[in-house]
Structure formats: C-alpha cells, structure tokens
C-alpha cells in the first residue's frame, strides 16, 4: 500500500510496532516456511529473482525479503511505534502512539488477521500439570516435555506441528475439525501454481456464493517443506499420528471429541476433488507450457473405524496441548464504531464503513489471495485508487470486473 500511495504522491507514514516483518520475526516457529512458492510473492514493482523459484522461503528469508522491499520502495517507516488508539475526528483520524500523535485524513488498517490466538473457553478445564501452548509460543519440539501431545486443529498450522512433533518421537493425537485437504503437488506442478494459473486465486469476493463462509474457511492443509511432502490426514496417519474428531469439551480431566469426524473428512475430500477436477477441465482446454502429467486420483481420507470419543489426559500420557485453533485480529486500540456484533470490521472489499478508512491483509478481502503476500499488490492498487478518489473528493467507484474463471469457480465450496 505504501508503494501505491508513493506512486500517487500521497503523503503518508507507515507505523510499525516493532521492526519491518515484526510478526515474522517474533511470532513464528523455527521450521516454518511460507506455503507459497518463492515466485509467488509478487509485490508491486518487486518479484523473486533468485535461482529457486519453486522453493519455499524460510522465516529468515521471508524477513530479508520484506526488509529489502521496504528499502527498495523507500517506505516512510516509523518503526518501534506502537499505536495505542485510533479515533475518528471531523477531519479524519487521530492516531495515538507511544511516540506521539498523528492526524490523517485517511487510514489503512494493515495490522493483520492473526494477532491473538483463538483458544476455546473450555481450555481452562485442562487438568493441572499439562503444558498448553499456542502456535505463537511454540518454537520447536525440543521445547516440549517427552510424552504425548494433543494438537487441536488441523488447518495448515495444526497439521504442520503434528507432522514435526510426531517426527521428534513424541506421540501426537490430532483433533480434527473442519479442514481443507490439499496435495502439495498435482500433475507435476505446485497446487498453488494451478490455483494461480486456473484463476482460483483471483476469484473475487463478490463471486462466491457465501462470502461469510469464504472468509472463515480454515487454511489449506499445506506445508512448504523442501521435499514438498504432503501433510494431509493420510500422510499423518502413515506417520503414526492418531486422529480424533473435533475437540468438543473437557470434563473431569477427560477430553470429549465429536463423532462427526467421518463426515468432515468426506466433505474435505469432496472439496479437494472439486478443485482437482476444475484443474483437469482447465488443463484439457488449455495449453500448459512444458506439458502436464496425467490426472491423479487420491485415496479417500482414511478415517479410523471407531475414532475414540474421549481421551483421559493422564491415562493417555498427554503432557502438552497445542491450540492450533486459529487466530483473530486485535482491534483493542480501534476506537471507531466499525465492528459488527462478532467483533469483525464492517467493510466492503476493504473499504471500511467509515469514510477514509481501509482494511488490508484479511482472508478473502477482495479476492481469494487477499491474505497472501501475493494478494497484497492487487488489493493495494485498487484500494489506493479508492483512497485517492476519496482524498480529492471525486466520485469513488470500482470497476466490478468478473474474474476470468468466475462461472466455473462458483461452486468450489471453500
């Protein structure tokens, strides 16, 4: 956004509570790599030029990438400046920080979707003596006691941690709620190459049948390991991870799991296969440079015949619970009445329900890839145009273009 504002000669500052790439530096586990291949982090006026376009960035590489970008675009950055309050005034917004006050006519909220780990309320019923960690506190398996580990949640974070911790010799039980299964590679290409090429990543926020659902679907079961290995439930079962249903409660030292596991696995298989058939249809009608391998069919998710419905922490030897149950944004500093009853910002494709206020970096903000580094560019170009029109008082409107694959994507289901 800063780069787009600079291009439009709009005077602005970028406030950062830490240094550039703060959350990547301080809130991620050691082995994490980006889920997107290197070539796919395209930012306005900047792209990957290294010799491993299909690799996945480590955290130090990700941090260096963002630091270089901030330098290249000469972002007017105020680092180590923590925003403590944002108020609306007649002229615009007043931003209070620990280093003084800023006044602006327009404001872009780019503080992220993942500030606070969402942990279920029943977590407090966890028996004493069992360590509980959120993914923000987790660094590596060496940090955990020997013994069993219950990982709660099977989106990208949960399945990656289950994979890594099981490989460290600790027995992992994974509680699986709603999830989206995805192979890392399909027909010889990265799945995200396909989603980008076919147009899935560009699917617009007005082109999904249920936007609320699209904005809340769990992240794809993917990892960016150098060996491109899958981390879906079948891969984890093969590793020896025990699968149970969604954690529904804890009572008297016993975890209770939902009996709906088989259906969630079936729904996930159906969604994955719908995407793969969409890719096959596209590949049948289009020339793929370098050719493609034949269609693949993946085995159904192997669901245990009778997954246990309860787990006694003590008897099962569970020493650690990891709450991979998602994150939510922190708006405790936002003193502008734009939150809905569930604490989410009311906005239309990033244009917040308060004049001159914009939002970025949220899932499906304007398109499927909005929460990816690769999606920031298109969103920033469009929202900066809206912001510029707002500042000069001209008519503000978006061209409501349909993405190329809109029709075919309507029934994707995630």
């Amino acid at each position, binding site marked *: 956004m800063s780069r787009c504002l600079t291009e439009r000669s709009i005077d602005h500052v970028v406030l950062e509570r830490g240094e550039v790439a703060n959350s990547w530096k301080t809130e991620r586990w050691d082995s994490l790599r980006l889920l997107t291949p290197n070539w796919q982090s395209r930012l306005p006026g900047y792209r990957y030029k290294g010799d491993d376009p299909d690799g996945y960035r480590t955290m130090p590489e990700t941090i260096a990438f963002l630091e270089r970008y901030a330098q290249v675009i000469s972002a007017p950055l105020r680092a180590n400046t923590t925003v403590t309050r944002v108020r609306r005034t007649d002229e615009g917004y007043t931003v209070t920080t620990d280093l003084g006050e800023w006044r602006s006519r327009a404001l872009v909220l780019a503080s992220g979707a993942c500030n606070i780990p969402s942990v279920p309320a029943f977590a407090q019923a966890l028996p004493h003596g069992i360590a509980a960690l959120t993914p923000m506190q987790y660094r590596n398996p060496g940090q955990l006691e020997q013994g069993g580990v219950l990982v709660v949640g099977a989106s990208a974070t949960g399945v990656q941690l289950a994979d890594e911790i099981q490989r460290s010799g600790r027995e992992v039980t994974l509680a699986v709620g709603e999830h989206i299964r995805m192979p890392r590679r399909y027909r010889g290409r990265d799945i995200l190459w396909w989603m980008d090429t076919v147009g899935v990543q560009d699917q617009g926020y007005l082109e999904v049948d249920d936007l609320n659902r699209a904005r809340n679907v769990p992240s794809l079961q993917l990892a960016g390991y150098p060996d491109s290995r899958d981390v879906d439930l079948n891969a984890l079962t093969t590793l020896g991870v025990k699968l149970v*249903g969604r954690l*529904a*409660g804890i*009572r008297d030292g016993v975890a*209770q799991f*939902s*009996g*709906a596991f088989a*259906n*969630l696995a*079936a*729904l996930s298989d*159906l969604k994955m*296969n719908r995407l793969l058939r969409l890719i096959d249809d596209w590949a049948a009608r289009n020339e793929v440079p370098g050719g493609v391998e034949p269609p693949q069919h993946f085995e159904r998710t192997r669901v245990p015949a*009778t997954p246990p419905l309860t787990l006694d922490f003590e008897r099962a030897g569970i020493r650690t619970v990891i709450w991979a149950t998602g994150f939510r944004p922190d708006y405790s500093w936002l003193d502008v009445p734009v939150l809905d*009853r569930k604490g989410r910002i009311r906005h239309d494709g990033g244009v917040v329900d308060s004049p001159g206020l914009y939002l970025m970096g949220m899932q499906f903000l304007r398109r499927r890839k909005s929460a990816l580094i690769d999606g920031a560019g298109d969103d920033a170009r469009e929202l900066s145009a809206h912001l510029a029109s707002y500042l000069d008082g001209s008519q503000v409107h978006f061209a409501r273009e349909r993405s190329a694959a809109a029709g075919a994507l309507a029934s994707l*289901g995630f």
Partner: protein
Amino acid sequence: MSTETEKQVQNGVNVDALLGARDALSKAPEAAKFNWKASCKWMNGTHSQTSIQGFYGLGSQQSHKTEFTFDTDHPEIFASEDKGATPVEMVLAGLAGCLTAGVASIAQLRKIQLRSVKATLEGAMDIQGILGIDSDVRNGFNDIKVNFEIDADASKDDLEALVAQSQKRSAVYDVITNPTNVSVSVAKKSMN
C-alpha cells in the same frame, strides 16, 4: 450472466422462504433463539406418552397446528407391554427425519430433483451398560449407521456432497455427535 433457462426442480421445499428467513435472522439474531418443548406422562410400567405442541421462536410463543403424541415403551423381551417404540428408536427417528429433511432442502437449493429418498438406520448398543453389568460399557449407542438410497437427477459425487452437507447442517446429528449439557430438576407434587 447465465442465459440458460432455470432448471425446474420441485422437492416440495420452499427454499426462497428458508433463504429469506436466513437473511432476516442474520440481521436479528435474537429471533433465532428457539426453545423446543415436550412433556411426558408416565402411563404404566415402561410405557410413557410424550406430547408436543408448543414451542418458542421468532421472539414469541408458537404452536404446531395440532398436538402430536408419541408412545414409548419397550418390547416384550424386556418384559414390557410394547405399546410404543423404545426411546432409543425415537432418537433414530429424530436423526432420520432431520437428515432427510436436510437432503430435501439442500437438493432443492442445488437444483437436484429427487424421485425417492430412503434412509435406513441402525444403532448398535451393548445393553450391559443400561443393566449395570459392566461399568466400562456406555449406556447409549456405541455406533450409529445411516444408509441413504437416493433416486435423483445427480451424479454419485453430487449425492455424496448432498448427504455430507445435510449432516453438516443437521441439528440432531450435532446433538448426537457432540456433548450437550443436560440439567434435570425435580419437584415433589403435593397430595392436595
């Protein structure tokens, strides 16, 4: 813009009304709070009769068009008089009714014409639990199997997706597969 003529599907479900209600209730979530009610009278032995008519929802008291009554009892092999289905069979009836209603509604929404839908249910139970023979055996079902046989204008994949979505949206399926807090109170009725 679709230029195809809308496919005519009639499963007897008023989807427009359901979608309208969904839209209205998402704006007024208080009205979405319902209370379902039943009252049960002991008849004799293991025979009881449950009556259902009133319920609460959309912000006020509501009522079924008529009162429905259900007899529950146990079969003769339990030394009972068998004046009704067993309560656990009523649970299967609830699950079947809920999933099948979901199948019809979602089929209507997805423009799938149904010709016939038949669900067959089996609930496995080890009655050592309810008889107190073995405290490691639970009282309730240890496994429920549902089989749907559907004749419709749709592929096998579409039917699987239909049945999967019906489970995802089903109240009774949720009640059975997830823990629910149940509180039971008792009052002593005075003689006079």
